[in-house]
């Protein structure tokens, strides 16, 4: 079984005692001690050392808590790699919230760093600023609008 987590290729192969997990040219033999599907808890041993992990599934995301540290890994398929757009022209909401005010109009020329609109979420004000000098091409939202995370708010042109 070949996997890709946060761009890290991993292979996992069943063995008589558990699994071999392969990455970075290394093979890690793993023994499973206990598996609790209800809580997503896996107890296992790597090289004789006991480990206990809690894992939750969230689409392609994996939430993992191990030794009291939590981190999120994203499972990607090789096909979809590199598809992410890194354009500075489209400005997206960094989190869900409400648009409080829009400071610019369509066609207006703006400077890099200029505040284009403000959002509010969880009692916090967030400024959406231009990532480059340019012109406002489209504004997708109006004050009071509720937006989702990564929803495009404003599009700019050079």
């Amino acid at each position, binding site marked *: 079984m070949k996997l890709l987590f*946060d761009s890290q290729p991993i292979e996992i192969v069943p063995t008589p005692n558990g699994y071999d997990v392969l990455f970075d040219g290394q093979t890690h033999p793993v023994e499973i001690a206990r598996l609790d599907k209800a809580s997503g808890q*896996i107890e296992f041993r790597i090289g004789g050392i006991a*480990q206990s992990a809690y894992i939750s599934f969230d689409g392609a995301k994996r939430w993992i808590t191990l030794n009291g540290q939590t981190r999120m890994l994203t499972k990607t398929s090789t096909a979809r790699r590199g598809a992410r757009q890194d354009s500075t022209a489209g400005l997206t909401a960094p989190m869900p919230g409400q648009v409080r005010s829009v400071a610019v109009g369509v066609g207006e020329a703006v400077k890099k760093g200029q505040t284009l609109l403000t959002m509010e979420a969880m009692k916090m004000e967030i400024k959406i600023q231009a990532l480059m000098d340019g012109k406002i091409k489209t504004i997708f939202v109006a004050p009071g609008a509720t937006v989702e995370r990564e929803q495009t708010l404003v599009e700019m042109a050079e």
Partner: protein
Amino acid sequence: MFTKILIANRGEIAMRIMRACQELGVKTVAVYSDADQNALHVQFADEAVHLGASAPKESYLNRDKLIQAALHSGAEAIHPGYGFLSENAAFAAAVESAKLKFIGPSADSIRAMGDKAESKILMKKAGVPTVPGFEGLETEAEFKQAAQEIGYPVLIKASAGGGGKGMRVVSQESELQDALELARGEALNSFGDERLLIEKYIAAAHHVEFQVFGDEQGNLIHLFERECSVQRRHQKIIEETPSPVLTSELREQMGAAAVQAAKAVNYFNAGTIEFIFDPSSAQYYFLEMNTRLQVEHPVTELVAGIDLAQWQIRVAAGEKFPFQQKDFMQRGHAIECRVYAEDPASGFLPSTGKLLQFIEPHGPGVRVDSGFAKGKTVTHFYDPLLAKLIVHAENRETAIQKMQNALKNFIVHGVVTNVDFMQAVLAHPDFASGQVTTRWVETVLAVADLAVEKNKPTPEQLISAALAEATLANSSIAAVERRNESDPYSPWRQTNGFRN
């Protein structure tokens, strides 16, 4: 005692107050917005009233709806919790006008402490130390003279201000003119009021606050301090008591000043006097009064041995507070960590989503005041506090150990939390030595490093992810969870037939 109370709040504080009610044999009425229809506090209450849309002004900030809900449900009193309308004098007055009891201080006390400049003048009169400075100045020359008198660095801030707006630190005279102009402009823009005040700037300050508590018969005492200097964006993250920077002499002086301050506004019920404490000079200055129960009240409860939420209700019901100052002493050490749904590595940006996992730590000396549970959703409408984790141990060192272990056993998936960040704070030598000031998180703690450290997954994390894929993925977990979900409005009838 009341027979029924409406709790005009949500989340952990609504739960906290309802537990106190249960123990007192008082029925509870919860209120909720659209976003909270499935929330824990709604399920826990004896009854629940829907207020309206998710936006606070349509629900938890809507005075009329709250008072109507109380009257309609037959509640005799309203507990405001903290935040929302808890420090709104007009609400307190409206509650009393509706012949309901407001569980908190009088509307007059709230009003007197509500305005920063006015309350500062009031405190000066009452002999409570305030930050050296001047109000009511106008010309640049007046400010220049005042600054010289106070000594640089000075702080210029809007009289009507709050939230850091119209605030400028001035380190030398040459910067004064520009600073005044900028501050005036911001003050006018933000508050429609260009008045400024000038005061001494205390660079490395601690936030030390004193709990006060009194009954309506005039007995008021303090219940010692809380050290709340671990902050980000002026919001507290970790609180503890006793403060590592106070001597017992200072504690006695500041406690007496807190009582004096509260008595100056005829205060009753629970309140907090916040001080700025300058460790270099061992001077303390009145900052403001919070005229309600604080988020961090549990550390005081554990170290002073009192149930503040219960006593709030008792004294509001007319009971005398039977204790004197001498009845209290601090025992052991308590720390509170606020578990927020936010990402410290991305500038503490709030994180929302469904809680896929929510396992609270347990054990002697470990208390969790929580407003969430597995399966609940964290929305962007309200503040990001998921739960408060509080520990109590014999001394500061063992309390830190206990907290570190408890944080390790607090497992939240589905939203990013500050749990790992708080571990980094607790493990820092500055925290161990009690030297954390209010600007420490921003200036000292290497948040950036935390982010970098997380970039590369550890081998164990990768192995766990791979094992999960092999053993848990595509298994019955997802399906089971969907089936277990309860739908509060149209439950079983669509799906279950009857067997006769």
